[in-house]
């Protein structure tokens, strides 16, 4: 339990430090009283006191790293990385009514944000309209309430859809929300071939971690396949899926579990789409990923580097992708919400800075930095501005973007990258042996692994083996010193009134026949996107469409995994 890693000095090392006097002293240092007894990463991976060339004895630059922009892309997907183009600064936002969020999106663009990212409220995520009984108390709380095309029109009002890329965090009803976005673009005269953005649309991590599922796994996977194949043909610059480790990590996984489960989820989607008859190079270039950035700087950087390497190999060797763009693990990063503390909230600014730096040093394509008040509520405008400024300071003042993958060649970072990669392959093999990710999810495998890791970490905190400043050490009894955002219940009333009005004024016959056509198609293996688009154009609501699908597909309840 309190085994001291620091006394394990490697007698096998062939490496002789140039100056034994200065080099040997930290190696022999034992932890001072009160410091964490174990030297491990946040995820519990042992860390040596010193890394030397011996740790990279079999290291091969071309095989293990390659130059940036070259297979296996460990050093980054682009040759010039941030010298060519900075990462996209994309703050996840959504709260209250579509008007409220529209104003926040315009504000963020004015502050220099370069992409949009929309958060939906829980009723929307679960496929319920704002006036559904289960939506009571939840409307507009965790994101924006969107029940129909009418709401989406307000949400996107005045935004240049051909110029700005929009990411939407929506999963079970992703096809429907995406269809609403596409119809707004259509009505605004924006060309589907030109618009770009991302729908999260990653249902597997919902069963694994975030638990916002509606339908059982099989029909849910079919919806994902439908959106990927539709996107490849009709909206070629759209990323139809963002395979997400973020929520897996938030649920308490280790860094390796986050990486391995996410990449194995990605493989599952590739296999399903290929089984539906599409060539891997037709859709893999538009698959994107989304990772967490937690507190342990080097562990996170190693994770991103290993992610690119494993994904490149999987796509090229396992799936035979020939287009180099299919090999790229392009990813968004969000700093770790679960690392934010309600206590001493200003400390969160520091945590977020370190995490954001990990994402940048790890070569992320876009970044969300959390706001200091998010352990309490959705962020206020001033808090989200500070979070955006954090990215801008890293981008324009720190000097970090000047050179590509600056940590390459660090004995520690390269060793940790190799170890992370190896541990990731071990998990991938275990999930393969279970019959793939859908089978593993049905057996509760990733869910159990994550719960074990979360419980282990909680016990480490309670024994102070891991320290969280302001929570289990350096505690003060200050009262909260910041203002937080409160969502008015009037939002729910207003949304309900708007829905009632919509249901009164729309062409009811058109709605009914569109919903009926959707029901009919859902029972076949035809692509559902054209039918969903037709329902959306008729102003059928999200809840109505999901009800149709619930009747055909059934709903999912998580079994109790012992």
């Amino acid at each position: 339990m309190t085994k001291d890693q620091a006394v394990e000095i490697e007698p096998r090392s062939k490496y002789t430090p140039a100056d034994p006097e200065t080099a040997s002293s930290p190696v022999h240092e034992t932890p001072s009283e009160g410091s964490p007894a174990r030297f491990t990463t946040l995820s519990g991976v042992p860390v040596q006191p010193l890394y030397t060339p011996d740790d990279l004895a079999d290291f091969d630059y071309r095989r293990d790293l390659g130059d940036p922009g070259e297979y296996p892309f460990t050093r980054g997907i682009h040759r010039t990385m941030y010298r060519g183009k900075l990462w996209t600064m994309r703050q996840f936002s959504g709260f209250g009514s579509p008007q409220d969020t529209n104003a926040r999106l315009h504000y963020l663009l004015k502050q220099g944000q370069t992409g949009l990212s929309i958060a939906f409220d829980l009723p929307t995520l679960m496929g319920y309209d704002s006036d559904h009984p289960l939506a009571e108390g939840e409307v507009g709380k965790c994101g924006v309430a969107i029940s129909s095309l009418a709401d989406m029109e307000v949400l996107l009002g005045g935004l240049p859809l051909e110029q700005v890329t929009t990411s939407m965090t929506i999963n079970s009803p992703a096809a429907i929300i995406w269809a609403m976005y596409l119809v707004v673009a259509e009505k605004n005269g924006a060309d589907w071939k030109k618009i770009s953005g991302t729908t999260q649309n990653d249902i597997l991590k919902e069963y694994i971690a975030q638990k916002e599922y509606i339908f059982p796994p099989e029909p849910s996977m079919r919806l994902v396949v439908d959106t990927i194949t539709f996107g490849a043909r009709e909206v070629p610059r759209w990323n139809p899926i963002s395979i997400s480790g973020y929520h897996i990590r938030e649920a308490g996984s280790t860094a390796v579990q986050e990486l391995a489960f996410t990449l194995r989820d990605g493989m599952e989607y590739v296999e399903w789409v290929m089984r539906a008859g599409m060539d891997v190079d037709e859709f893999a270039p538009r698959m994107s990923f989304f990772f967490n950035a937690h507190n342990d700087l080097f562990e996170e950087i190693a994770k991103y580097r290993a992610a690119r390497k494993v994904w490149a190999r999987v796509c090229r060797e396992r799936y035979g992708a020939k287009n180099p763009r299919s090999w790229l693990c392009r990813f968004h990063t969000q700093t770790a919400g679960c690392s934010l503390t309600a206590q001493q909230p200003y400390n969160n600014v520091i945590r977020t800075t370190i995490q954001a730096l990990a994402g940048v040093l790890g070569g992320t394509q876009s970044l969300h930095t959390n706001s200091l008040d998010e352990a309490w509520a959705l962020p206020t405008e001033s808090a989200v501005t500070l979070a955006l400024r954090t990215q801008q300071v890293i981008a324009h003042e720190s000097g970090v973007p000047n050179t590509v993958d600056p940590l390459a060649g660090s004995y520690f970072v390269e060793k940790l990258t190799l170890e992370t990669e190896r541990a990731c392959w071990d998990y991938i093999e275990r999930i393969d042996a279970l019959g793939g990710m859908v089978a593993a999810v049905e057996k509760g495998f990733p869910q159990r692994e994550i719960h074990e890791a979360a419980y282990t970490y909680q016990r480490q905190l309670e024994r102070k083996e891991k320290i969280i400043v302001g929570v289990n050490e350096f505690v003060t009894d200050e009262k909260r010193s910041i203002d937080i955002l409160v969502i008015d219940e009037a939002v729910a009333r207003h949304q309900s009134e708007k829905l009632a009005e919509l249901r009164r004024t729309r062409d009811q016959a058109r709605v009914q026949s569109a919903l009926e056509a959707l029901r009919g198609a859902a029972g076949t293996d035809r692509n559902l996107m054209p039918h969903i688009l037709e329902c959306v154009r008729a102003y059928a609501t999200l809840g109505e469409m999901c009800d149709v699908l619930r009747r055909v597909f059934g709903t999912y309840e998580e079994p109790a995994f012992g």
Partner: protein
Amino acid sequence: MDKRIRVLVAKPGLDGHDRGAKIVARALRDAGMEVIYTGLRQTPEQIARAAVQEDVDAIGISILSGAHNTIVPRICELLRAERMDDVLLLVGGIIPEEDIPALKQAGVTEVFQPGASTQDIVEFIRARVATKTI
């Protein structure tokens, strides 16, 4: 103590963040209590019914969706109607401080905020159940 403390751990509302609920459930179990976990997205009615059927000493509600001011008072009301208002009602999750007085007024015994230790929760339940039985 010959009778084991029985606790219902419940997750109302639409959010699926069950990390906290499951950790608390396991910590209470490890501390020797009998724990019934409802699973996700339970309505106040389902939670009150389960509390009655399982005859629990305490209920732990975990909610991170921001809907606590709507959902928790309704659970309190239903428990009162079932004459279960002597049951300890603990709430955890993202609960801003300014909401706590009204929740306690409605019948919540204690609110555990982010960062609370499972040991504190175990000890709180043990102490309160012990005073009740005396």
